[in-house]
């Protein structure tokens, strides 16, 4: 009944090119799904990690992020990762950067992704352009998808669950025309352990959030025994959460055992809370 119980963390990757994704697909053992989809989609066996290859450009990034959300039934506690290569004349070729500010030509206002706390990875301001840029002087990092990915992902979850990582692939000393497929894969590969480290933080917060929003253990059991309206269900869930801090499952079951209606279940649980004297020495 409660499928969510099986899924602890939930990660969704949006990556422009297959070459950027390959190392991730291998490491997380993501396999192509067995259906025809608008964009290529991969997932692991546990269905905790899903990855979509979005192609180049903002339209693709926006559409594929939304598509992956609905296709994979992502949740509010899903973490969203965008990784890819970027141009820069400020950072070092091959280094991995976290993004904490995004600008575009089109919009006056910038957006501000959060970054994982206490990371030693450097951070940069990303400029997302619709056309390849060869003058690197005005921006820290340049890509073609980041802003659209962030705009859509931040409608799907809190910004603390969104991460953009960029590896510098071109700049004044590394001509964009010299980028090859194998160079791209290699740039991601040399940063794999840093990427895994970042993603493990997003796995942790996703799992922690899941445990907080997950319904109390007894919720479905109780609902299967009595009929609860939507409002009553909400009341039941809230009461169970409150009672769980001082009462174990057996005691709760015993308390409601003789109830004949859902209303009396709620009343009995309510009385239990009314009579609770919090023992502050326990917490």
């Amino acid at each position, binding site marked *: 009944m409660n499928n969510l119980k099986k899924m602890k963390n939930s990660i969704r990757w949006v990556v422009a090119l297959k070459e950027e994704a390959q190392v991730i697909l291998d490491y997380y053992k993501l396999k192509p799904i067995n259906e025809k989809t608008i964009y290529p989609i991969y997932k692991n066996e546990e269905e905790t990690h899903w990855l979509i290859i979005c192609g180049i450009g903002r339209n693709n990034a926006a559409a594929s992020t939304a598509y992956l959300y609905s296709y994979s039934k992502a949740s509010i506690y899903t973490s969203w990762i965008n990784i890819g290569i970027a141009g820069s004349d400020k950072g070092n070729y091959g280094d991995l950067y976290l993004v904490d500010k995004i600008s575009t030509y089109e919009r006056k206002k910038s957006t*501000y992704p959060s970054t994982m706390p206490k990371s030693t990875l450097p951070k940069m301001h990303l400029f997302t352009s619709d056309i390849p840029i060869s003058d690197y002087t005005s921006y820290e990092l340049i890509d073609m998808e980041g802003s659209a990915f962030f705009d859509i992902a931040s409608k799907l979850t809190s910004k*603390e669950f969104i991460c953009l990582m960029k590896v510098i692939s071109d700049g004044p000393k590394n001509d964009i025309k010299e980028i090859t497929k194998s160079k791209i894969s290699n740039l991601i590969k040399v940063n794999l352990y840093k990427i895994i480290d970042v993603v493990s933080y997003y796995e942790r917060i996703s799992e922690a959030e899941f445990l907080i929003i997950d319904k109390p253990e007894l919720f479905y059991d109780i609902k299967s025994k009595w009929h609860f309206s939507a409002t009553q269900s909400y009341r039941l869930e809230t009461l169970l959460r409150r009672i769980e*801090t001082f009462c174990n499952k057996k005691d709760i079951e015993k308390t409601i055992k003789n109830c004949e209606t859902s209303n009396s279940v709620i009343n009995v649980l309510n009385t239990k*809370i009314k009579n609770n004297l*919090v023992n502050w020495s326990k917490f």
Partner: protein
Amino acid sequence: MIETIYVEDAIQNHPKTKFILNKFKKSRIISINKYGEIFNKRNQNFRIQKANPCLILAHKKDNFVLPAPEGFGIGSSKNFYFSHMYNCIYDCRYCFLQGMYSSANYVIFVNFEDFDISIEKIIKNNLNTKVTFFSGYDCDSLALENVTGFAKHILSIFRKYPQIEIEFRTKSIQKEPFLSLKPMRNVILAYSLMPELMSNSLDNKAPSISKRIRVISQLASKGWKIGLRFDPLIHGENWKELYQELLENIYNNISIDNLHSVSFGSLRFPKRMFRDIFKLYPHEPLFSSPLSLNNKMISYDIEIEEEMTSFCKNLSLKYINEGQIFKCSI
């Protein structure tokens, strides 16, 4: 350690901005247009932000001083409040800021000079009225004093008007600027307190009650006027013994001559705010207390509230006058 500081473009060169940034040399500085781009936007996770909040330096445009909510006073006929900061470095589980803002980042308004103008205007319009100002309604008024210097700054205004009271409400053990200054009779240093056992569970990241009491005692003996704020009163096993021990400990350890006032407040949340806070921390013991909907507020039942207030009040009357005791009822 603040990892990221967002700074509004308009105040990049403000002396207070420079003063504050100078204290965080290792932080990453990000320029922004308006603090609203970061603060209180939708789709933020308060709980995750609270673990590692950013700082936002901003310019406040208006509403520098506002009338305090009904029931907030300590005996004056007019009460006002101002906040140079939104949010708090502490993480008290009953704090209304958790339900008020969707962001846990700290906003500091650096244009203190505009607070001065508004405060002086109100003072001049109320010269013949008993007025109290409350500093830090949307934050802890002293917790970040070593970063902002706001209390030190604002004291210079109140030094000119000894008939106008100002209360700094805090849980911090920040002794400066008070320890180095000559006490002012119109300044109340008001400390929020509850039994240590409850505080250990509820006042996350705040100094322990015993440390607070030590500082209160030091400042009182220096001559500063002290306010004791038992707000909110927390219910639970042995609450009578716990409050008795706390009250007696305080009254026996501070100079009662310098005790300005004592107030008791009940634990109350507007219904919606409770829902938001409960969503953030559904497994908190506080929410397993006998709280229910009473008069559009989630609170203890009125009998519990009254029993707690009168118990604490009666105990306090052994040490202080009835006129020094107030009920905080917002």
